[in-house]
């Protein structure tokens, strides 16, 4: 795996020539998305040294390294999330479940369990087959209810459960999508103005939210944070400005932080 001994950014940007190769397509993000065959969510790695040691960031062509250093004032660790089109939803679910496992968030855990229990009724009203949806809901409820506010050793088990490819997280991760659709369809006044190019909210949700290979969008992020009543902070590592990193905050409530590299989300944790 990776050698994470170096906690300092490399002083030399590898052995690349300082000038930009002219044939390089400039729009190509210089970060490699995590392999789609890796674990759902990785162990905790030190931030930003893990990214600096695994990505070929070249200081001469972009401001990624400068931005990572700025972020390191706030964040100290990262979990790399599988890059298969569901990275946002997977990050969201992992972040949510682990936060809800903290004893001080017990009342939020109970509130969200209640929300998920009732979700099947709304989905049925919107034309989803409840018998099909139940299978997914049960898996998510299993995750939420087995999340007994835990000691440190309990959180290890939780990580194992959440990253088990045959465990409940796969179906639970997908269930976030219909919950998102459901929120959009029940708030047409909020979402219709942004989706005028689609024949209906229903067709938008069917083709742009529910297929598991489709990545999240600003619309789906807005919807999911409202649906669950939590907050997601996204730090945009776009390489544009060496002096600042744009942070977008969605929703309100318990906070999940993510790092966005062009096309991909990972989980990051504050110091």
């Amino acid at each position: 795996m990776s050698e994470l001994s170096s906690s300092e950014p490399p002083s030399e940007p590898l052995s690349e020539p300082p000038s930009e190769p002219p044939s390089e397509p400039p729009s190509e993000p210089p970060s490699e998305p995590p392999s789609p065959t890796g674990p759902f969510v990785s162990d905790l790695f030190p931030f930003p040294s893990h990214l600096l040691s695994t990505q070929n960031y070249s200081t001469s062509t972009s401001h990624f390294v400068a931005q990572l250093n700025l972020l390191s004032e706030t964040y100290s660790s990262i979990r790399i999330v599988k890059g298969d089109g569901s990275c946002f939803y997977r990050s969201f679910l992992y972040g949510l479940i682990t936060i809800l496992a903290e004893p001080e968030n017990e009342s939020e855990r109970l509130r969200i369990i209640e929300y998920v229990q009732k979700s099947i009724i709304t989905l049925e009203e919107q034309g989803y087959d409840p018998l099909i949806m139940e299978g997914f809901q049960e898996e998510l409820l299993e995750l939420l209810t087995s999340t007994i506010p835990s000691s440190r050793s309990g959180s290890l088990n939780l990580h194992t459960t959440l990253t088990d490819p045959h465990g409940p997280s796969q179906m639970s991760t997908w269930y976030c999508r219909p919950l998102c659709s459901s929120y959009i369809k029940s708030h047409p006044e909020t979402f219709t103005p942004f989706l005028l190019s689609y024949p209906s909210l229903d067709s938008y949700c069917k083709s742009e939210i529910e297929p598991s290979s489709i990545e999240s969008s600003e619309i789906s992020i807005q919807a999911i944070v409202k649906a669950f009543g939590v907050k997601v902070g996204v730090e945009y590592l776009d390489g544009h400005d060496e002096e600042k990193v744009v942070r977008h905050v969605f929703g309100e409530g318990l906070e999940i932080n993510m790092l966005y590299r062009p096309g991909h989300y990972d989980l990051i944790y504050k110091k």
Partner: protein
Amino acid sequence: MNSADLMAMTSKRLKKELKQLEKSDDNTIYLRPIAVGELLRWNALLRGPPGSPYDGGVYGISVNVDSTYPMSPPNIRFVTKIFHPNVNYNTGEICLDILKKEWSPAWSLISACRAVLSLMDDPEASSPLNCDAGNMIRAGDMDAFNAMARMYNGENAMVWEFPTTPPKKNT
């Protein structure tokens, strides 16, 4: 790799779908596993939609899933040869977005079959797997397309008997 648990998820879902099918009396689609106890390989019979050139015909399709279902789509093919722009005449391969990149686990085997049925009624000439059929429709020559489709319907699809009552379950 332990596929037993994943299979549990898949088989739980498929059993649920089968149970629902056994309770329904759909007279346009008949969908069942190919044998009692089998869950991954299914066959379906689709009644050609009234008003389409397939009216009166009954079309056999194969519906196969693997242990990643319902996270990934079933593989659905026509067994009965059909003249349709979105179906390969020789292999039965179907070009339908929900069976590929627009698949979501909210679909089921029966709803996927319904989507195939509505594709029969509403061919999409822009992405043809059967160029002859696609060209006729794109050229606006619906008479020619309908005549060809009807001819093949008579030749290939009239031999099936549509099951009126579900066969007895062997236990």
